[in-house]
């Protein structure tokens, strides 16, 4: 797949925005500047980016508790995300959702979700809505290896398959459900083989190679848009950070993975791989990549300033938006 320079630079910018945003969120949470739980996706930038780069603006996504990366990849604004995570009124959800629940309907982001597996039927229904409304929008559904053991995974794949719905199921297999190794609670080695049970295509994808993710996603999205039904993509990846920022407080001295395993995965860093690709292909200069990084750092600093200076919600807003009036 010979990609143009614009899309390559867009993907690099997306991965950079995710990486820097997540690292900052980790630091702010560690410094207790953010309330509640935060789950960051450092190391998983390529799957979010490769899939969203292959979507149109009117296409939709559903996301997970570890959702910042998906939202950024679909075009989410760092300032409004940051403000939401700070619990501010200027946040995407006016401070009612927080890190695990950011939504931007204008960008087709139906939301992160705090319940594992909840996004699968929602994405399936979003795809159904396109069919009922006679539109050709596709929905991409991000979820983890843990969600593939939920009933909603199986019910959604069956429903989407039987109705040939325009949805792409993207499993980001990072090897752990919270602190439990996937292999100890999952009957299969590869989640992708579960596609066979629903008579739909299933592919194992190198989830740390943004170009490979983009290639598989483009094919699955085209297939969905043409009315040929869903695809299951399993992006093999890894989270460098813990399940939740500050998990040492729960775990104490216990650990669920080795330093060596983490180091090995860091060698497969999606951004380093992209740098290497850029250098080898000769399509993009190091200066261009450096400029994107500098611009992103400035964007992020502005986002933090915006979040810090934004007002907290007024207590009187507590009863707003329960119902549509």
């Amino acid at each position: 797949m010979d990609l143009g320079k614009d899309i390559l630079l867009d993907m690099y910018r997306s991965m950079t925005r995710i990486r820097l945003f997540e690292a900052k969120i980790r630091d702010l949470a560690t410094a207790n500047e953010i309330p509640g739980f935060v789950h960051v996706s450092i190391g998983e930038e390529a799957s979010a980016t490769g899939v969203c780069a292959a979507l149109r603006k009117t296409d939709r996504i559903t996301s997970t508790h570890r959702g910042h990366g998906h939202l950024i990849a679909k075009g989410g604004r760092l300032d409004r995300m940051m403000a939401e995570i700070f619990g501010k009124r200027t946040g995407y959800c006016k401070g009612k959702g927080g890190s695990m629940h950011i939504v931007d309907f204008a960008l087709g982001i139906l939301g992160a979700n705090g319940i594992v597996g909840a996004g699968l039927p929602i994405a399936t229904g979003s795809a159904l809505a396109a069919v009922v409304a006679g539109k050709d929008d596709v929905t991409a559904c991000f979820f983890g290896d843990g969600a593939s053991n939920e009933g909603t995974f199986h019910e959604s794949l069956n429903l989407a398959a039987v109705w040939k719905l325009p949805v792409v199921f993207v499993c980001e297999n990072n090897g752990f459900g919270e602190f439990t190794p996937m292999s100890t609670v999952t009957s299969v080695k590869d989640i992708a083989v579960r596609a066979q049970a629903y008579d739909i295509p299933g592919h194992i994808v190198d989830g740390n190679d943004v170009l490979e993710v983009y290639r598989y996603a483009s094919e699955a999205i085209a297939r969905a848009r043409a009315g040929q039904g869903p695809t299951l993509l399993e992006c093999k990846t890894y989270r460098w950070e813990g399940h939740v920022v500050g998990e040492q407080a729960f775990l104490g001295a216990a650990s669920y993975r080795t330093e060596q395993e983490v180091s090995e995965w860091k060698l497969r860093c999606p951004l380093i791989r992209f740098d290497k690709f850029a250098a080898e292909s000769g399509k993009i200069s190091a200066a261009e990549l450096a400029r994107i990084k500098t611009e992103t750092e400035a964007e992020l600093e502005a986002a933090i300033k915006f979040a810090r200076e934004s007002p907290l919600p007024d207590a009187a807003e507590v009863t707003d938006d329960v119902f549509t009036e």
Partner: protein
Amino acid sequence: MAVTTYIQAINQALSEEMERDPLTFVMGEDVVLSAFGATKGLIDKFGPTRVRNTPIAEAGFVGAAVGAAMAGTRPICEVEFASFFYCAFDQVCNQAAKLRYMSGGQAKLPITFRAVYGAMGGAAAQHSETVYAQFLSVAGLKLVVPSCASDMKGLLKSAIRDDNPVIVFEHGALGGRREEIPAGDYLVPLGKGAIKRPGENVTVVAIGAMVPQAIRVADRLAKDNISVEVIDPRTLIPLDEEMILSSVEKTNRAVVYDEGHLRGGAATDIAALIGEKGFDFLDGPVRRVTSLDVPIPFSPPLEKAALASEVRLEAAIRELVGR
């Protein structure tokens, strides 16, 4: 005015609203053939894109209704028996109910859920339960319990036009009851109760299938000069507090009559409202007449013993008025 059954009223409401808005569609268990008749014939009028049999997989298809609503359509989702909602509790309670609020008002969730509830004779506990109380304290759902054909039609049409998740509970034993329904585009607003029978001595707030029973009891007691006012709240969320309280202000006595359970039930909720906001009107304690706190049994004498009954309602009213 045409004579129509409760089930036909559902069918008319669905057909009219689907005619009116091409973004509405019906999905659920056996909606094409329609086991109870509510969706019969819709497939011929609206075709397979808008009338969809789902697998028996409630979490999946209820969740899909949530996603379809978020993405701009207006699903009408049938969960055959209301007890099956237990299989889709996350989708109803964590997703449908909460996503508008959690998204800061971005999500709109125009979903109408329909489900049959209540005891209809020998169906046993998993097909006989009155489950609306389980949804009372979720926040973010509207709950509708029509007691007659005309209310069913008018409320269901309003539910379908509402931009929020609404559960319409249909009592399994009311399906064949006939009634005249006003012609034309008949709507009953959500949140407005009805005085089903005016009276002076005691207010009976009755819910769903308990309404016709309460009217029968009121008719019998009238012969003993006990004048009973029967209030049907018609929707539990929103609740017409004003109608309930002004009736109690007039009668000074209240009984809440519900087929649900006592603990944490709808009767308990409404009794607490009357006790808190209508205390000064009362000449005696608010009585709750409900089913017993047991799973609804299978065998007829046991089922009868478990259910809220006209006999127990009559006894409660007589005790309150001292006659």
